[in-house]
């Protein structure tokens, strides 16, 4: 019998936790550090790869993703050595997708060719804004022109390049965003990630917000309007909203992220990396030490994980829903039922259908564009006991 994860595929995530500067809005596991012994890190990554591969040997690996932090600060030789080891450890699919997150600085741009030679075939670049005032407000250390240059170099070097923008920023009007988005679409190749600014607790923005000092953020209604026009404008340009914040031409979706959302299996290596891996029919949630030094030392001692626990079938059903409903393709209800041991039904589900938030068609449950804007509410309705 096929195991559930095979519905989603198998990918590998590698976390690089360092950045040149910490952005004030960012709550990812990213740190600024002066001295980084990259070859010491490489040895740790390789040893972790060996360990995880031993548990998952024989599986066909579909994707690799270098995320961060700023992986474009990694020495290309380190990236190449990791990829070489990966190929030795797992059989890989012919068209394996290998993505690297890059910041749009000139230093990084200089390394693109070397990454390509090491095996990277897709770049995801954090451009964030297309005007200098907003880049400054976001605390970014690059300008729009630097970003555009970096992007040009990237698209000449790689056939697949995506970039990220953050919108619903301070003092941004609906018009401002519409014209910026159109400019972005004129640059874009076939993939874009468009995130609404989220004020996270524990960040500089979070502190400022708590003190009432982060002004001009859009009210929910404006943010909702922005989200609506974003979906419409992108769809018009042939970039379909295939996930809450991701837009792509058909066939150009990020395959690695789709493994998460389709609730496949993924290994995670590096500080704070998460994984879901099935061993002997049991899916496990795995977390690595979040602190970079702690992870490095434990990985050197043979295991960087700090948590590994089985996820119950009902827990998996919940996770399937949480991840899967982010995708416009939705989830397979039969798959849900197999995991949950009971169908997803009840008056709350009917109400959601009734008010046009979700639809059910041929055993497929999809969240409609209306519902995607209030996905958290939809989910809590679906999952309330």
């Amino acid at each position: 019998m096929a195991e559930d994860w095979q519905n989603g595929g198998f990918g590998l995530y590698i976390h690089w936790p360092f950045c040149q500067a910490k952005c004030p809005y960012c709550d990812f596991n990213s740190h600024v550090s002066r001295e980084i012994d990259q070859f010491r890190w490489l040895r740790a990554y390789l040893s972790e790869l060996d360990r995880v591969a031993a548990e998952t040997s024989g599986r066909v690996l579909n994707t690799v993703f270098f995320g961060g932090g700023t992986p474009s600060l990694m020495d290309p030789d380190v990236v190449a050595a990791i990829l070489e080891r990966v190929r030795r450890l797992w059989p890989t699919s012919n068209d394996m997708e290998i993505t690297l997150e890059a910041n749009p600085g000139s230093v990084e741009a200089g390394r693109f060719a070397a990454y390509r030679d090491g095996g990277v075939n897709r770049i995801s670049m954090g451009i964030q804004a297309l005007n200098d005032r907003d880049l400054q407000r976001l605390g970014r250390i690059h300008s729009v022109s630097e970003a555009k240059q970096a992007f040009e170099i990237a698209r000449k070097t790689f056939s697949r390049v995506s970039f990220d923008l953050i919108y619903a920023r301070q003092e941004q009007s609906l018009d401002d965003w519409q014209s910026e988005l159109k400019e972005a679409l004129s640059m874009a190749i076939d993939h874009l990630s468009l995130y609404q600014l989220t004020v996270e607790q524990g960040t500089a923005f979070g502190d400022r917000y708590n003190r009432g000092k982060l002004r001009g953020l859009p009210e929910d209604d404006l943010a909702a309007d922005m989200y609506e026009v974003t979906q419409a404008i992108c769809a018009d340009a042939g970039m379909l909203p295939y996930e809450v914040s991701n837009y792509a031409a058909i066939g150009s979706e990020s395959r690695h992220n789709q493994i998460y959302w389709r609730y496949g299996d993924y290994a995670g290596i590096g500080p704070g990396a998460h994984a879901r891996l099935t061993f002997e029919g049991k899916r496990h949630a795995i977390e690595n030490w979040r602190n970079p030094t702690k992870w490095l030392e434990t990985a050197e001692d043979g295991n960087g994980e700090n948590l590994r626990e089985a996820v119950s079938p009902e827990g998996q059903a919940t996770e399937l829903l949480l991840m899967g409903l982010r995708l416009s393709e939705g989830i397979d209800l039969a798959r849900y039922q197999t995991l949950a041991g009971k169908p997803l039904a009840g008056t709350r589900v009917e109400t959601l259908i009734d008010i046009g938030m979700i639809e059910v068609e041929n055993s497929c449950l999809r969240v409609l564009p209306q519902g995607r804007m209030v996905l958290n509410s939809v989910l809590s309705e679906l999952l309330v006991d």
Partner: protein
Amino acid sequence: MSTDLSKIRNFSIVAHIDHGKSTLADRLIQETGTVQDRDMKEQLLDSMDIERERGITIKANTVRIDYKADDGETYVLNLIDTPGHVDFAYEVSRSMRAVEGSLLVVDSSQGVEAQTLANVYHAMEADHEIVPVLNKIDLPASDCDRVAEQIEDVIGIEATGAIQVSAKTGQGIHETLESIVKDLPAPTGTLDAPLKAMLVDSWYDAYLGVIVLVRIMDGTLKKGQRVKFMSNDTLHSVDRVGVFRPEMEMVDSLGPGEIGFLTASIKQVRDTRVGDTITNDRNGTEVALDGFKPAQPVVFCGLFPVDSAEFEDLRDAIDKLALNDASFSFEMETSAALGFGFRCGFLGLLHLEVIRDRIEREYNIELITTAPSVIYHVYMKGKDNTVGEMIELHNPADMPDMSKVDHLQEPRIKATILVPDDYLGDVLKLCQDRRGIQLDLTYAGSRAMAVYDLPLNEVVFDFYDRLKSVTKGYASFDYQMEGYREDNLVKMSVLVNDEPVDALSMMVHRDRAEQRGRAMCEKLKTLIPRHMFKIPIQAAIGGKVIARETLSALRKDVTAKCYGGDASRKRKLLDKQKAGKKKMRQFGRVDIPQEAFISALKMDD
């Protein structure tokens, strides 16, 4: 042990809330050495958790102290510390029946307040000698001359030489004790007569069973004696007799004029009736004491468990609390919206809050409290244009169809409000808004005393809060029930998303219905969280909508970013949302938070 009558003084300590009764009791207890200094704590007699937490007295408490006076004689003093809050006025009036005098404590930085007056009236009714005590003289704002003058003006008792006391520092305590001995009368009674004792109070004790507080009028009460409770002719064998110091101390007997307790293996507080007369089982007294009017609950509301599985636990908790509180009534109630619960009756809102808190805390049951209501008298139409039977309506949800109703009557109260001149206008407006009829308005110095006839239903809910806020806390308020009167009352229902929510329906005066309806809808709009669809909120009388608001739909609630494969983070968020949902009740498609049922009714006039 019978004490010479001339050496006994029995008195209650009465005052407006917070004027320092319990603190004065502390000092009297301490000065006479009744309790060792190391065992002393503030407001020693407020022993219930809820009393200590809120810093108020709820239950009257009795203490017996021995005092060696300046005349060289030792006196037995029985003091009863009473609650100040109007909800517990019943405790005060019945305590007064057991004693001959009252210490009337007045905060000398505040002056005469509404409960000061109310207590004076009770004391006069009980033929008490009243000794005024000016307290808190240590405070900079203390003004004894002014307050003494006020006592003379407003109350009409001599106060020029009133004792000046600080219950905090102990100043004037000795004078107070001397005055008790000199100015209060000794009790009277006959030793060689059949036992005649007043059942002043009773409560349940887990070890001893029901404890009965008694005042001996004639004869003696002894351990081992067989006694009869005259109201229901039940016989009991007394197994303990004692006094409070304030700990229980066993004695062999109590004689005329003394106050103490008995136990007689009585299982339930219900088997004792306060105000009852206790006598010998044979050859007892012929004439019973007058008895007390029982305390009647005046405010009703529904209590429902948030988790419907806890209904049986709630029943248990309510049973246990009622055991010790005769003024609290309950009956089962079912609500379409809230499921199974209890309709409970209370002496007032504070009483309601106290009981609710105790259930939540001592029994660990989360509750939904519905809108407080009063008892309406609904007169049904009879045959041929006559008036038919009268139904007591405790719950607006049970209101019969209006076409079958001839007319309605509501309970009215007589309210006395004391307020500094500056705020009088606001107070009069508030009373006017609440359909009050002015009965009297007099002045004493810079304070006004307004007496109003008010419908109880306009007062039970938030009148006191509003009064406090419009007068910045300078007004005081007291009331008594005045009977029923007809008025144009209607039932207002509330519809959320077109579904009636029975727990929110209420009786209102027809002329005030639109205003109440509007306020209610506006309030609910802020209390119900936005949903994925827009929600009409309406108030209606019969089928006619009189107010309407629309809660717009939630438009954005989504996590924008993707944290790699961190599904656990998403699950945590969801768990938080689910916990929030648990605190709500579903009505049709709408989740209403439980606090909405009470908050929706608070009017900001």
